[in-house]
């Protein structure tokens, strides 16, 4: 059976050339970068190179890059690490209500420890209002954490505007760029960003390697203590092969930062047009224009997302959903709730993320399958039957 992967946000294959540069660090250059003898040299150089490549992707000083094992770890380090080192500077942190749980949950923990947290609302597209950020900052605020782009609805935040407000008030600005890095140009210098999270597996690098950029001189408490790896900010022997892969993937993403996103946006727009033409009662979630080039989030009215996902999976079309039934916690997406999507439409949400194997040739097949599956599930939906009855009465 044909397989069309439209869930690249969940997992993407490694770029073959990335794997190639990683392999020698598993077999030949397997040394520990901290070793004093010869075996440590090559891995140490490789780490430095990877740091430089990751730095280039976001125009950052390589010395300001801390490698971690995941974006979640980097977000935890950013939020908790700064909070714990703030001391008398203050105890107030501001974030958006649509942050990833690796920002939101550490904030909850900090709240229990006495920190004050403000979660800013977003508009119907998922955009944070700079004026609301300005109003929320107090003389106790130590950190503003607002993601660069949302992985679920794709909406890109006005980072420069937001960071400027923080800067003017002397507050540090962190952005979780996990979904954005490699897909939209990022420049920590120009954008006034003090801390930035990114992960290689979002741009064809390996899983298990991510990075936190921390402006030099920023006081931070390590969250993983032990050795003095990563300037003492993250203990543990470095995962050299994965970090090498992250560096190479960052290099490739940087080289194609104009080309790759543009191509995929054209494809995404074609898919979107095709789906909206073929399937009635579809709704777009997230910003119509200011969104990640590979992201499409739709709500299929009158039906539930897990049922859609399972049926599409049977047809080889792989997607994700923000429905409560697809989450282990049985809660619908906090992001869709925050942008005011009704519970019914949140249940019928589908997240499609395109990637390197996505092709225009697959669009008719995907369209046909979604039209069929939506139609079939609607025939058994009480909400759809109710809609048809009401339409008949009103006609």
């Amino acid at each position: 059976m044909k397989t069309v992967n439209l869930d690249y946000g969940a997992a993407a294959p490694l770029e073959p050339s990335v794997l190639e540069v990683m392999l020698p660090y598993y077999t030949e250059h397997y040394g520990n970068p901290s070793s004093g003898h010869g075996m440590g040299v090559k891995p140490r150089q490789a780490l430095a190179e990877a740091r430089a490549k990751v730095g280039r992707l976001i125009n950052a000083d390589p010395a300001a890059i801390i490698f971690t094992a995941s974006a979640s770890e980097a977000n935890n380090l950013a939020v908790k690490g700064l909070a714990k080192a703030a001391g008398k500077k203050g105890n107030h942190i501001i974030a958006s209500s649509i942050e990833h749980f690796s920002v939101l949950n550490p904030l909850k923990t900090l709240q229990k420890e006495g920190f004050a947290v403000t979660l800013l609302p977003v508009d119907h597209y998922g955009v944070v209002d700079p004026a609301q950020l300005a109003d929320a900052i107090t003389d106790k605020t130590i950190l503003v954490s607002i993601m660069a782009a949302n992985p679920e609805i794709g909406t890109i935040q006005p980072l420069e505007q937001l960071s400027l407000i923080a800067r003017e008030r002397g507050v540090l600005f962190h952005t979780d760029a996990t979904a954005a890095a490699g897909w939209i140009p990022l420049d920590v210098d120009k954008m006034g960003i003090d801390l930035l999270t990114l992960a290689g597996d979002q741009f064809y690098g390996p899983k298990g390697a991510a990075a936190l950029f921390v402006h030099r001189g920023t006081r931070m408490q390590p969250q993983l203590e032990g050795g003095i790896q990563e300037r003492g900010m993250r203990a543990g022997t470095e995962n050299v092969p994965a970090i090498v892969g992250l560096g190479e993937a960052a290099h490739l993403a940087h080289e194609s930062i104009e080309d790759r996103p543009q191509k995929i946006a054209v494809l995404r727009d074609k898919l979107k047009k095709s789906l909206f033409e073929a399937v009635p009662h579809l709704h777009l979630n997230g910003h119509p224009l200011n969104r990640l080039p590979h992201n499409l989030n739709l709500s299929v009215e009158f039906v539930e997302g897990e049922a859609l996902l399972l049926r599409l999976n049977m047809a080889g079309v792989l997607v994700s959903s923000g429905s409560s039934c697809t989450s282990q916690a049985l809660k619908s997406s906090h992001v869709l709730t925050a942008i005011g999507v009704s519970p019914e439409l949140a249940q019928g949400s589908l997240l499609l993320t395109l990637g390197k194997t996505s092709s225009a040739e697959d669009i008719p097949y995907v369209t046909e399958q979604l039209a069929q599956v939506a139609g079939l599930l609607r025939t058994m939906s009480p909400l759809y039957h109710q809609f048809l009855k009401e339409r008949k009465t009103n006609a």
Partner: protein
Amino acid sequence: MPDYSDKVMDHFTKPRNIGEIENADGVGEVGNPVCGDMMKFTIKVKDNRIEDVKFLTFGCGAAIAVSSMVSEMARGKTLEEALKITNKQVAEELDGLPGNKMHCSNLGADALHKAVEDYMAKHKTGEE
């Protein structure tokens, strides 16, 4: 993807008794989109037995499979027998449900019971 049994997948992919009976003798509705599932059962009753039963469901794979299974279990049963169908029996007939989907089986049995109770309430002071 949840780990559904073959039986759940069978009822999900080939649901039995979809629809809504016109001028039904009993109607039972449970759930709402906020909790994720909604079920509507309609029944036709003859000589105290469920002669026909149909369902409409907005919900996940488990909810659809449960609805389909309940409709099969209910058909031909007396009203008293139908009221005795438990969520546990429904889950067992489906060879089990994942832990976090057990509430779907509650909904299915509840919707059927409501339809039967609706019929009974209408016929309390009826022809008998």
